[in-house]
C-alpha cells in the first residue's frame, strides 16, 4: 500500500501539485486520471522518487520515503518496477538482455538462474521466441510487454505505469491493460497507472484518482465515476463521443 499525505511540488513559480492526499491499495490497479497539465506525471515521478516533494509525505507500506537515508531509498527503489510511456527499453540490448538487466544489477543469481527467470517472465507476458530481437525489431505492443516483463522480473512490491497503452491500437491496449491487472492480482503488488484513456478506466479501474490543476478533485472506482455529479469529472469522462452517447442513452432511460 502507498499512502500520500498533503503532497506539494512546484518548479520555480509554477505550483504543480497542491496538497494531494490519497492512498493506493495493494493487489489493486489504481489509476490516476486527469487532463493534460493536471499534474499526473509530476505526481507519478514523486511516487517514483524522481522528484522530491516540497511538502508532504509518501509512505510505502510502513516506511515514509523522506525519512529514509540515501541507501535505504535505493533499496526501496529496487522494490519498484516502472513501465514508461515510450517503454524506455535500452536500444542496444536485446529483449532478453533488457529483461535480465535488473537481475544483473541487483541480484546475485547465476547466469543460468537469470536465464530461467527471464524465460519465465517472457512466457508470462506471451513473448516466447522474441528474446533475441532488438527493441527496434518488435511492435509497440510487444515493446510494452517487454517493459512490463522488465518491471516485474525482480518481483517488485510496487508497479508504476505511465500511460501504458498510449500509441497502441484499441485491441492491443486492452491486452496490455488486462496483462497489468492480471499481474497485479497474481503477484499481489500495488499498481499505480497514469492514464487519460477512458477505456482503461472501464477495463481495469479498481481505484481512480482524478487530478485537476494539481488538486485531487475526485476519487472512487469505475462504477462510481459514471454516477458522480462532479462537473470536472463528467466533463473529462464524457469528452469522448462514445461515452457521451452512452450517457445520453442512460439519461433517456434506454
Amino acid at each position, binding site marked *: 500500500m502507498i499512502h500520500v499525505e498533503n503532497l506539494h511540488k512546484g518548479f520555480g513559480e509554477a505550483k504543480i501539485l497542491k496538497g494531494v492526499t490519497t492512498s493506493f491499495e495493494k493487489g489493486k490497479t489504481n489509476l490516476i486520471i486527469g487532463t493534460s497539465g493536471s499534474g499526473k506525471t509530476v505526481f507519478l515521478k514523486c511516487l*517514483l*522518487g*524522481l522528484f522530491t516533494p516540497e511538502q508532504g509525505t509518501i509512505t510505502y507500506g510502513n516506511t515514509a520515503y523522506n525519512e529514509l537515508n540515501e541507501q535505504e*531509498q*535505493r*533499496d526501496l*527503489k*529496487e522494490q*519498484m518496477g*516502472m513501465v*514508461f*510511456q*515510450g517503454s*524506455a*527499453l*535500452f*536500444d*542496444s540490448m536485446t529483449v532478453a538482455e533488457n529483461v535480465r538487466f*535488473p537481475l*544483473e*544489477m*541487483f541480484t546475485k543469481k547465476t547466469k543460468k538462474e537469470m536465464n530461467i527467470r527471464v524465460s519465465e517472465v517472457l512466457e508470462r507476458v506471451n513473448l516466447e521466441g522474441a528474446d533475441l530481437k532488438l527493441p527496434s525489431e518488435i511492435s509497440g505492443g510487444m515493446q510494452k510487454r517487454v517493459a512490463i516483463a522488465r518491471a516485474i522480473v525482480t518481483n517488485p512490491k510496487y508497479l*508504476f505505469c505511465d500511460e501504458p497503452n498510449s500509441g497502441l491500437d484499441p485491441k492491443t491496449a486492452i491486452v496490455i491493460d488486462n496483462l497489468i491487472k492480471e499481474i497485479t492480482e497474481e503477484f499481489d503488488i500495488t499498481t499505480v497507472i497514469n492514464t487519460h484513456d477512458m477505456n482503461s478506466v472501464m477495463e481495469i479501474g479498481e481505484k481512480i484518482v482524478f487530478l485537476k490543476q494539481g488538486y485531487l478533485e475526485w476519487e472512487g472506482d469505475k462504477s462510481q465515476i459514471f454516477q458522480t455529479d462532479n462537473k470536472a469529472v463528467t466533463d473529462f469522462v464524457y469528452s469522448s463521443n462514445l461515452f457521451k452517447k452512452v450517457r445520453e442513452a442512460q439519461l433517456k432511460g434506454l
Partner: protein
Amino acid sequence: MFYLQQIGAYFLMIKEVFNRMTKPSVLRKLILKEIDDLVINSLGIVAFISFFIGAVVAIQTALNLTNPLIPRELIGFASRQSVILEFSPTFISVIMAGKVGSFITSSIGTMRVTEQIDALEVMGINSLNYLVFPKIIAMLLYPFLIAISMFLGILGGYVAGVYGGFVTNDEFIAGLTDDFTPFHLVYSFLKTFIFAFLLATIPSFHGFYMKGGALEVGKASTTSFVWTTVAVIMVNYIITQILLS
C-alpha cells in the same frame, strides 16, 4: 553567468560520475563495449587521415625548400615534429570531437529523450556512473590510437617524400632521427590523456543534461563538438605554455 553555471554543472557531473559505482561485472561489459565503440571503431578514420596528412606535410615542406643551403633532411625532421607535437595529439583530437563526441552526445541524448535515463534512475542506478565512467576508462586507450596516428603520419611522410622523389631514404631517416627530444613524446602523451578525458566527459555532459526532443539531440551534438574543440585548443595552449616554453 550562463557559461559559469555550465562549467560548475560540468564539475558537479564529474564528481557524481565517480560516486556509487555500478556493479563490477556489469561495468566490465560496458567498458569493453565502449572500447569497441570509441577506440576500435575510430582506428580506420584516424589511420586514413594520419597517413595522408603526414604525406601532405612532407610534400609541402619539400616544395617550400627552395634555398639550396637548407638540407633535405629537414623534410623528415619537419614531418616528425609536426606529427608528434601537434598533428596527432591535437588535430586528431579535434577530429575525434566530431566523430566520438557527437556519437556520445547523441547516444546519451537519445537515452534522455526516450526516458532510458529515467529508467536507470528509477531502478536506483547512478546513471552518470553507468553511462560516463565506462567511457572515461575506455578513453584511457586513446593514447594508443594517437601512437598509431604518429607512426602512420610519419610513414605517410616517408612514402610521399621518398617515393615522390623529394628526398632520399637516407636523408629522410637522418632528418627523422636528428635532434630528437624524448620529452616531446612525454608532452604529447600527457596532453593526449587530458584530451581523452575531455573527449569522454564534455560530450557526455551535453547529452546527459539536454532537454527537448530529436531536434535538440542534433543541436546538443553540434554544441558538444564546438565546446569540446574549444576545450582541446585551450588546454593545448596551456599545456604547451607550461611544458615547452
